């Protein structure tokens, strides 16, 4: 068993006006050891909700109503608050999107990182401080010793995100969840941060869940990709397969909406419409209202998850028809 995390049929719901609204509706995700797995999709499709359910930090009206999250043989969904806290920050840690607001403005950054290690390891304060300075050096914070005593507002966005990475990596976790870690940063900083994360995780053997809406990031560092839409995984496969043998119209839309340098386009492709409200999902396929290839069956029933190849899952009737009728409809190649 080389998966460190296995999510099966996970359902997270909110009680809204007396009825349950499913933010996650039966998702399956496997995270292999030491690999980088991307989760992509538009805002509001359940990416962050997936992350928060792995962390056990879903905010109150929401809760896990079904399914399992298996982390290295332990079932997380049934874990006590106290035991969960022992795993958080030690075996599973997380980096957030906004480095500006994710650090406590009135506590020195060194102290904030130190807190994580003192909490999980029996270690003296001096040793902990040494470790923090060490990790600061590793994540490329210049003048690490001086920066230990800085407050968050004295650091740039890139440095703050490096502090966050240091905080997440200091206990050498088995799994790192990065929730849009580079969205708030400059493009030049983005590449550096991604490289840093990849390097650190390779050296420790940490797996990464990379949550992003940026296909460029996926192409750059991910081994596997899960494409999510409205609380479901609609396609999952190896990164290379996803780009070359796109099977779901939504994935295709995402890929087509990446602008390309050196190619003249009149207008950048956009997927029409918006992610549906989870209180008012279409009766059939969730993507049906926005799909260019929608047919009658798509409006009336929901497609099942099907493997069209080893490691290539897709949830779409279109694909089924291609298989059955040997029809040769292919998406126009995105460039």
């Amino acid at each position: 068993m080389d998966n460190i995390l296995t999510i099966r049929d996970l359902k997270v719901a909110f009680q809204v006006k007396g009825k349950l609204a499913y933010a996650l509706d039966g998702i399956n995700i496997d995270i292999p050891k030491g690999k980088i797995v991307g989760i992509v999709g538009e805002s509001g499709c359940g990416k962050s909700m997936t992350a928060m359910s792995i962390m056990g930090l879903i905010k109150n009206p929401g809760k896990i109503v079904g399914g399992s999250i298996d982390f290295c043989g332990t079932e997380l969904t049934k874990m006590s608050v106290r035991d969960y806290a022992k795993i958080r920050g030690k075996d599973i840690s997380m980096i957030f999107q906004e480095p500006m607001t994710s650090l406590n403005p009135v506590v020195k950054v060194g102290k904030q990182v130190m807190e994580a290690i003192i909490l999980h390891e029996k270690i003296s304060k001096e040793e902990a401080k040494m470790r923090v300075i060490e990790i600061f050096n590793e994540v490329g914070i210049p003048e690490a010793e001086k920066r230990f005593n800085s407050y968050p507002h004295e650091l740039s966005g890139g440095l703050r995100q490096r502090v966050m990475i240091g905080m997440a990596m200091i206990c050498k976790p088995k799994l790192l969840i990065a929730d849009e870690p580079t969205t708030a940063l400059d493009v030049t900083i983005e590449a550096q941060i991604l490289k840093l994360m990849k390097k650190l995780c390779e050296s420790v053997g940490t797996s990464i869940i990379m949550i992003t809406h940026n296909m460029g990031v996926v192409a750059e560092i991910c081994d596997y990709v899960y494409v999510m839409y409205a609380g479901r995984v609609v396609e999952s496969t190896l990164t290379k397969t996803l780009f070359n043998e796109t099977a779901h119209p939504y994935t295709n839309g995402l890929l087509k909406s990446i602008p390309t340098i050196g190619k003249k386009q009149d207008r950048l492709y956009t997927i029409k419409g918006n992610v549906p409200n989870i209180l008012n999902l279409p009766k059939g396929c969730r993507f049906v209202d926005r799909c260019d290839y929608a047919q009658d069956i798509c409006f009336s029933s929901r497609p099942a998850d099907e493997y069209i190849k080893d490691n290539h899952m897709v949830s779409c009737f279109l694909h089924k028809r291609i298989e059955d009728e040997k029809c040769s409809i292919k998406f126009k190649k995105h460039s």
Partner: protein
Amino acid sequence: MFKNIVKRILVSIPVLIGVVLIIFIMLRVVPGDPVTTMLGEHVNQVVIDKISKEMGLDKPLYMQFFTYISHAVRGDFGTSYRLNRNVTGIILDAFPNTVRLAVCAAIVSWIVGIVSGIFAAVNKNNILDRLFMGTALLGVSMPVFMIALVLQYLFAYKLKIFPVSGYETPASMVLPSIVLGWNSAGSIARMTRSNILEVMQEDYIRTARAKGLLEFAVMKSHALKNAMLPVVTMMALQISSMLSGAVITENIFGIPGIGRLAVNAIETRDMPLLQGTVIFTTILVIFGNLIADSLYSILDPRIRKEI
């Protein structure tokens, strides 16, 4: 940081002068002659003129003002008309009593307010929270004299635990301190609660949880410090309402403090004394605001380094 504080001190000087000016105008440019107001209606014009001259009230207003300011800077607030004593001396005699009352009341209100605010925030929206916040709102809504009279009735008259009035013994300070602290305790509790609940929504609280801290530790080492910053400022700002409340508390419990002095000054129509007490009290308030601002810039690293 020091630059900041010095700047604030400089800004409060014109405010101080403005305060003196307004009180000055209010007490002099009123319908009727200030001396007549002081002495009552049926007094010989000769006597009025004589007293006007003695108190310098016959000079033009701006001259009076500058004389007063220049004396006040040297700590001389004039002479009480009724007590025939230096106003500064009278105020300084009364001041320690007010300070003692205010300090005790502040301690009561801080402890009660902060503890119940935290408690309510932790038990958000359940029965305990409602109970605490209901009591806090009751604290804000009760007139000071009502609390005073109710406590006097219960603890001094019925249970006979504390004396009805007086100020010499520690036991006699208990009721006045609770009375005066009551209102502030209510507003501190409400502010503490709402700040904590607001801070708990911040991203860095999520980070702290993701680090593996349990709720108690999240509250203790991350939420409280941020939530308390505005509360600390507010506590210093409460000096103003404390002094207003002290006027009533001192009168009910017979404590010879500054508030009592002000009411006496009005009752005996002693203008110089009234003027002195109001100006002195306002200086205290301005000083309190200064402390509040400085505290904030000392406690909050974001402001500390900026200036």
